[in-house]
C-alpha cells in the first residue's frame, strides 16, 4: 500500500532527524493516520448532523490532520455504539466516538449496556438544553406556561422508550408538578412524534434545543399549534437551577415553573428531584467526544487540544449557531471526566426508584 510505504518513509525520516525529542508526542500522533469516528445514532439525526459539522472544523485543529472516516452505529438508544467503543474498538487512538450519552442505560442498569461510561476517555462535550412543549388546545387552552398549570384535560405525552431520558424526564417533571397525563412510548424518533402532535394523537413532549429550533419551532410553534413551556436549566451548587444562556429568556427553567405551582419558597426534594438533577447535569454533556479506555496519552492530548481550539473557532461557532439557533455550550475533556463520575454515582434505593418509574 502507498500509505504503508508513506508511513515507513515518515518513520525513517523521523528516526534520522532526532529532533522529535523536542516535539510533543501528541503533535505527531495523527500525522498520516486515519481517524475513524463512530456516531451512536443514525444518519440525519441531531447527533449525526452535529457530529459531522464539528468534525469538519475540528480536523483542521488536530496536529497532523488525519483523514477522518465516519461510521454510524445506531441502536438501543445509543447503547450499541457505546458497547462497541469499549468492547471492540481499537484502543490505539485511531477510533473516536461522537455520541449522545446513553446515561439512562447505566443509571437503570440496563442489561443491554455492558460497559460503563466511567471507563471512557473524554475529549470534550457539548451541552444541549431540553425544551418541553404542549399543544395549545389542551383544555381549557394553553397560551403560555402559566396556563399549563391549570389544565384540566388528561393529555397524552410522547416518548421513545420507557428507558429513554426523554421519557424519564417527562414522567419526573409532570409528576413533580402533579399534572395528570397519559404517557405513550415507542416512537422511533422525534419525527413521528411531531407527526402525532400535528395529528393531535399526542399533545405533549420534549425536544433538544437543536430539534426544537430546527423542526418544532417552524412546524408547531410558529403556526400556533403548540407553545414552549420550560427548559431543563443549569444545576447550581446550592441545589437550584439557573437559566441556560442558550435559551430564550421567555422560556423559564423547570424550577421556576415548580415554584409557581407549589409556592415561591418551595424546594423540590426526594428521589424524583435527585434524578431530575442528574438529568440536568447530563444535559451539560449531552453530546460527548470520547476515546476507548486505555487510549494513548498522546492521542488524548492531541484531540483535547484540538477540541479546545475548535470551541473558539469562529467558523465552527457560526456554523453551530446557524444549525442550533443558539450559542455553543462546550465542556473540555477533563471537566467532563469529573462531572460524569459524579452523575453516575447512584444509591441502590435511588436506582430502584428510577427502575420503578421506567416501568410505570
Amino acid at each position: 500500500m502507498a500509505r504503508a510505504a508513506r508511513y515507513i518513509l515518515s518513520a525513517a525520516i523521523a528516526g534520522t532527524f532526532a529532533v522529535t525529542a523536542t516535539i510533543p508526542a501528541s503533535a505527531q500522533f495523527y500525522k498520516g493516520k486515519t481517524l475513524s469516528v463512530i456516531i451512536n445514532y443514525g444518519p440525519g439525526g441531531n447527533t449525526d448532523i452535529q457530529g459531522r459539522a464539528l468534525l469538519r472544523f475540528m480536523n483542521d485543529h488536530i496536529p497532523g490532520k488525519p483523514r477522518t472516516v465516519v461510521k454510524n452505529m445506531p441502536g438501543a438508544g445509543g447503547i450499541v455504539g457505546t458497547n462497541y467503543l469499549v468492547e471492540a474498538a481499537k484502543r490505539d487512538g485511531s477510533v473516536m466516538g461522537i455520541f449522545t450519552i446513553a446515561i439512562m442505560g447505566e443509571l437503570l442498569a440496563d442489561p443491554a449496556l455492558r460497559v460503563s461510561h466511567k471507563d471512557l476517555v473524554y475529549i470534550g462535550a457539548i451541552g444541549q438544553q431540553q425544551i418541553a412543549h404542549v399543544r395549545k388546545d389542551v383544555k381549557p387552552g394553553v397560551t403560555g406556561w402559566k396556563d399549563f398549570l391549570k389544565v384540566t384535560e388528561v393529555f397524552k405525552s410522547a416518548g421513545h422508550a420507557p428507558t429513554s431520558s426523554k421519557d424519564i424526564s417527562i414522567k419526573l417533571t409532570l409528576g413533580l408538578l402533579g399534572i395528570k397525563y397519559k404517557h405513550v412510548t415507542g416512537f422511533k424518533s422525534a419525527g413521528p412524534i411531531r407527526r402525532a402532535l400535528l395529528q393531535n394523537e399526542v399533545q405533549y413532549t420534549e425536544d433538544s434545543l437543536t430539534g426544537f429550533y430546527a423542526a418544532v419551532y417552524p412546524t408547531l410553534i410558529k403556526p400556533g399549534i403548540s407553545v414552549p413551556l420550560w427548559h431543563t436549566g443549569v444545576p447550581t451548587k446550592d441545589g437550584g437551577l439557573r437559566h441556560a444562556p442558550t435559551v430564550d429568556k421567555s422560556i423559564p427553567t423547570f424550577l421556576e415553573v415548580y415554584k409557581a405551582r407549589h409556592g415561591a419558597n418551595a424546594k423540590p426534594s426526594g428521589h424524583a428531584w435527585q434524578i431530575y438533577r442528574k438529568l440536568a447535569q447530563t444535559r451539560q454533556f449531552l453530546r460527548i467526544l470520547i476515546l476507548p479506555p486505555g487510549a494513548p496519552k498522546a492521542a488524548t492530548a492531541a484531540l483535547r487540544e484540538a477540541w479546545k481550539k475548535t470551541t473558539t473557532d469562529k467558523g465552527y461557532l457560526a456554523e453551530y449557531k446557524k444549525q442550533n439557533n443558539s450559542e455553543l455550550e462546550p465542556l473540555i475533556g477533563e471537566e467532563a471526566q469529573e462531572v460524569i463520575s459524579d452523575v453516575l454515582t447512584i444509591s441502590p434505593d435511588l436506582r430502584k426508584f428510577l427502575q420503578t418509574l421506567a416501568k410505570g
Partner: protein
Amino acid sequence: MFEAVLDGLILVVQWPAIGYLFLGVMLGMFFGAVPGLSGLTGMAILLPFTFGMGPGPAFAFLLGMYAVTTTADTLSSVLLGVPGTAASQATILDGYPLAMKGEAARALGAAYTVSMIGGVLGAVFLALSIPLVRPLILSFAEPEFFMLAILGLTMVGSLSGGSIYKGLATACFGLLLSMVGYAEFGGIPRYWFGFNYLLDGLPLIPVVLGLFALPELIDLASRGSSISRVADTGSGMMDGVRDAARHWWLGLRCTAIGVYIGMLPGLGGSIVDWVAYGHAVQSAKDKSMFGKGDIRGVIAPEAANNAMKGGALLPTIAFAIPGSASMAILLGAFLIQGLEPGPRMLTERLDVSFSLVWTLAIANILGAGLLLAWGKQVAKVTFLPGHYLVPAVVLFVFMGAWMAGSSVGDWISLLLFGLMGWVMKQGGWPRPPLVLGYILGKIMENGLQIGVQTQGWGMLTRPITIIIMVLVVLTLVAAVRRHARDRRADGNYPQGGDAAGNNSAVSVPFALLLLAVFIYAAAAAIPWRPAARLFPLVAALPAIPMMLVALSRDWRRLKALRAAGPSAVSGDDSLRRGAIFYGWLLAILLGTLLIGQYLALLAFVLLYLWLWARASWLTMSVYTVACGTFLYVLFELLVPVIWYESPFFDLFG
C-alpha cells in the same frame, strides 16, 4: 403560483445549479449501480460539500443524485441478480430470469422507461399535491399504518409460488426476524443472544443480499456458463421501451402506488417495490410467467421506486417529518441552508419547493436517458463466461453487505442468509414472503403498540382503518378463490423467483429447523413483559401448524421419491459443487480474521481464478490487480469504509 413554478425552474437551470444537477446525476448513477452504496450513502457523503452553496445548487446536487439511484440500481438487479439498492429487491425476481434468457437489454429498456416516467409523474404529482398535502398526510397515524402493513402482508399469497403454507410460514419467520433487537416500548432486548451486533436488529441489506444474491452466485459458480443461458437473442432496449408502452396502465398504477407509499412517512422505500410487484401479480390474469422472466415483474417495481421519491419529499418539506434516513439528511441540508422546513415552505418559499420538483423531474429524464443510451453495451456482461464474473460480483456483494455497518456481523449475516436462501431455493421455499414479513413486522408492531396506547382498541374503528380492513378482507377472499382456481388450472402459479427447486431432501431438514426456531421463539417470549411478547407469539404460534402441514407434504413427497430409487433423492452434482463454493465464501470470512478484509478478498479473487476458473497467469494477475485497485479507489478514497484489519498488521493506518 405559476410565478413560483417558473422561479423554481430558474433556480434549477441557472448556473451553477444545473452543473451541480448534472454532477449529482452522474454520482447518483454510481451510488445506485454499486450494490450496498445507495442514495443514503450518497446523501451522507455529499452533504458536507453543500456547506457554502446556495439553496439552488445544494438541492440540485443532493436531489439530482438521490433521484436516479433507483434508476441505476436496476443494472445489478437485472444483470447480476444482486439488488442495487433496497428499493430494487423485487426487480430481480423477473429481471434476472430475463437476463438468463438473453433479454437483459429488453428488461433494462423497460425499467429505464418506466423509471423515467414514474420519476417525472412522481414529481408532477408532488407539485399537484402541494395544496392537498395537509389533510392527506395527517389522516394517517399509527392505527392506519398497522392496517396498511396487514394489507401489505396479504401480498404473501401472490409471492408464495405453489405452496401457500410455505409462503405463510416464511412470512412468519420474516416477522420474527424483524423482532430481533431492542424493543423500544418494552424496554428490553429480544433474541439478541448477547451479541451487540443484534441489538439494533438485523440490517436489511446483508439479509437481502444473502437471500437473493448469494444463491445466484453459487449457481453461477457451479454452472460456470454465462448468466444468459442462450446466445444473444438480439433483443434490444427498444423492445423494452415498447413493453413499457404496452403495459402503460400497470406502470401508471404502480406510479401511484409509489407516490402514496412515499408520502406516508414510516412505510419506507424498501417496501414500495414489493407492494408494486405484488400488485402486478395480483392483478394479472396470466401469472404463469412471473418469476420466470415476465416483463411486468420489472415494470411494476421500477415505476414505483422512482415515483416514491416525489411523494417522500412532501412530509419532509411540509412538516419536517422525514420518512427515511435519506430524507432526514435532506432535512439537515435545510438547516445548513438556513431554511425552515414547515408549512411556510408551501407558501413563502414555494419557489424553493418547486425547484425540488423540477430537480426531480430533470434528473429522472437525464439519468434514464443516459442509461438508455449505454444499457445495450452494459447488458453484454450477461454473455460473458460466468467464471470471470463471479470474483467481481463476490467483491460487490461482500462490500455491499459491509457498507451496512462495517462489522464482521454483516458478513456473518450475509453468509447465514446466503446459505438459507440457497437451501430455500433448492427446497422450493419462497423467499419474497420472508423479506415482506421482515420489512412489515416493524411497521405492524410499532403501529399496534402506539395505536393501542393512543386510541385503545378503538383504533380499529377509525374510518380509514375500517376501509383498509375491508380491503384486507376482499384481498384475502379473492386470493383464496384464485388459489383454488389456479390449483385446478395447474401451473398458473406465480413463482416469485423460486421456480427452480423443489428438492424434498433439502426441504425436509430445513422445515424441521424452522419448526424448531418457531418453538424456541415462542418459548423464549413467554417470560417477557406483555408489550414485548405479544408480537413474537403472534408470529410464532400460527406458524407452527403451517410448518407441520408443509412438512408432512414434503415428507410424503420424499417417501414417494425414495420409493422411486436413490438417484431421484440425491439430486445432481450442482448441489455438491454449490456446497464447495459456499465453503469458498466462508473462507473469505475466515481469511479476513487472519489477514484482514482487503487481502482476504483479493486472495479469493486470485485463488478462484486459479483453481476454479483455471485462468491463465496473465488473466489472474491483471484481474486481481484491477480488483485491488478498484477496492482501494472506491472504498478507501471515494467512499471510505472502516476496513477490518488483520490482528497482525495494519494496511490502512
